[in-house]
């Protein structure tokens, strides 16, 4: 079982009468990319700030990499990188100087830091502007510099708060790629966003937050099935001749609930993922299978469904 990186129990934050985060139970394992979704003001950033020890929870506890962020903020901050939504750098300093400052604050020895900074600037594609003042960099570049800034301290866990807002599509692609690469290197990522397609692209698990509470949480496909498919799988099959006999055969497979026929395809509803059994049945029955695909649930639909119910 993977190591638990973030765990909260009934984490609550109240700001003079207003509850920003309401009894949140979060559980994130090592190596995950957790998509933290929700409308503005749902409590995403507040949760991150509590996990970093920058804000004290009103009640409930949090454990980050085995430390309590309120009691041992320095230990947590040594292991966690945070890219705030409105990230800023010292505009008069160059990209390299900004990273050097972060390295100093993290007590990295000079020469090692220089090498690492050079590497990181290459990783995020900023080596050409390394010695330019930050004021001359574009927004996308600054955001990538922010990622490099997080990586300087070699974190175990990284928080991204809306890393792609206000950036052109190409820039977004770059940023998502870098984040996906980070996860491959074993860094656990919490990704706050309302750019649903992006979350869908890279996140292994999502949690949807509304008014400080989770309304849904889990891997994307499961979430989709629960909300949209009534907890069932829907498989679309294309065969050369959808004969009545073939349909009977498919209906006979254990676990298949219903088969609907349309001119182009058959739509099979079932309890579990029965693709291999269905394929075998069709071939055994002498039919020719042209295509088969399991229905994917777009995060957008899932998300909208939750917020329509409100």
């Amino acid at each position, binding site marked *: 079982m993977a190591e638990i990186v973030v765990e909260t129990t009934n984490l609550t934050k109240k700001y003079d009468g207003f509850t920003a985060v309401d009894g949140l139970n979060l559980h994130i394992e090592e190596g995950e990319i957790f998509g933290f979704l929700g409308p503005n003001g749902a409590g995403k950033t*507040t949760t991150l700030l509590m996990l970093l020890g920058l*804000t004290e929870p009103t009640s409930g506890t949090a454990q980050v990499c085995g430390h309590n962020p309120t009691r041992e903020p*320095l*230990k947590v901050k040594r292991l966690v990188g*945070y890219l705030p939504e409105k990230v800023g*750098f010292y505009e008069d300093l160059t990209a390299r100087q900004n990273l050097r*400052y972060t390295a100093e*604050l993290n007590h990295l020895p000079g020469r090692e830091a220089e090498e690492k900074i050079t590497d990181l600037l290459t990783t995020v594609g900023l080596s050409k502007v390394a010695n330019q003042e930050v004021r001359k960099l574009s927004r996308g570049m600054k955001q990538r510099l922010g990622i490099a800034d997080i990586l300087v301290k070699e974190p175990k866990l990284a928080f991204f708060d809306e890393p792609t807002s206000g950036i052109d599509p190409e820039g977004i692609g770059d940023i998502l790629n870098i984040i996906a690469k980070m996860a491959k290197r074993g860094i656990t990522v919490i990704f706050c966003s309302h750019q649903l397609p992006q979350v869908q692209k890279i996140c292994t698990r999502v949690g949807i937050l509304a008014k400080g509470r989770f309304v849904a949480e889990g891997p994307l496909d499961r979430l989709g099935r629960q909300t949209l498919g009534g907890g069932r799988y829907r498989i679309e099959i294309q065969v050369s001749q959808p004969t009545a006999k073939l349909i009977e055969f498919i209906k006979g497979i254990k676990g298949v609930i219903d088969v609907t026929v349309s001119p182009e395809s058959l739509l099979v509803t079932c309890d579990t993922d029965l693709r291999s059994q269905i394929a075998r049945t069709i071939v055994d029955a002498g039919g020719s299978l042209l295509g088969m695909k399991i229905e994917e649930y777009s995060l957008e639909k899932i998300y909208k469904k939750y917020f329509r119910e409100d």
Partner: protein
Amino acid sequence: MYAVFRKELADHFNSRRFMILFLLALLAAVFAIYVAIQNIRSVVTADTEFIFLKIFTTSGETLPSFLFFISLFIAIIGIALGFDAISSERVSGNLSRLLSQPIYRDAVINGKFLAGLTVLGIIVASLVAIVSGLGLRTIGVPPNSEEVLRLIVFVLISIIYGAFWMALSVLFSVFFNRAATSMLASIGLWIFFAFFMSMIAGAIANARVPIDTNSSLEMITQNVQIAGAIGRISPATLYGEATAALLVPELGSLNPAMMLISTYIAGRMLTPLPFSQSLLLVWPQLVSVVALAAICFAVSYIKFMREEIRSI
């Protein structure tokens, strides 16, 4: 904290703000020294003991002395070094990034304050050194050891006075998000203390104990006492008194009534006080300015430490 301190110091030295302030202060100092040298002959007599100190305190008929200039500039430099210390970090989005690094939160404010203090010290010390050098060359009278001591204490008091204004402007920068608001508040308070306080003190004293040309000495003394006491609320007055006692050793007392009486009875007191006595004289002033600076810093420290970083 050392990293923050070093970065802030480097920032100060690279900033245009520092260059402008230093040049301005330097110009003013050189100008004041020129005035002093022009007029020094008229204030020095055969038995003047501390000729070198006169460079700093001699003014022209209409032109002010170095002491006057530096009392203005130190406050301005102090304010300029602190008014956006915290707010600029917050507005630029650096603060949350900075605070998510493994440093204690007070390292940020301490490092900034110490860096400002260092810059202030360098400015004041170099100004006094430059002026001393110029004075030494032109009047050709070297300072005696007591004068050197007095100047060193003068530099220290000036740094502390500057530190007060810096602490005050840092305080405003913690409370106000906009640098302009924080600067205006600091400058406003400075103008009030430096220029209006004495007027208000005089007005209150006159209301309590009205005096005219026929008033008895007792009445006049009382009036001056009240005005002096109220005036001392202002750190600018405290600094003025402290530096006067240090650089004008002939000043026998800082009690306004005593000063008044001495001019009535004996004309100017010409016997200079020994250094230890002058130091004793300025001790309360010195402690008050230190205390004021400490209070300002403590309030900004507490406010900054307890402040919650919120998502906006």
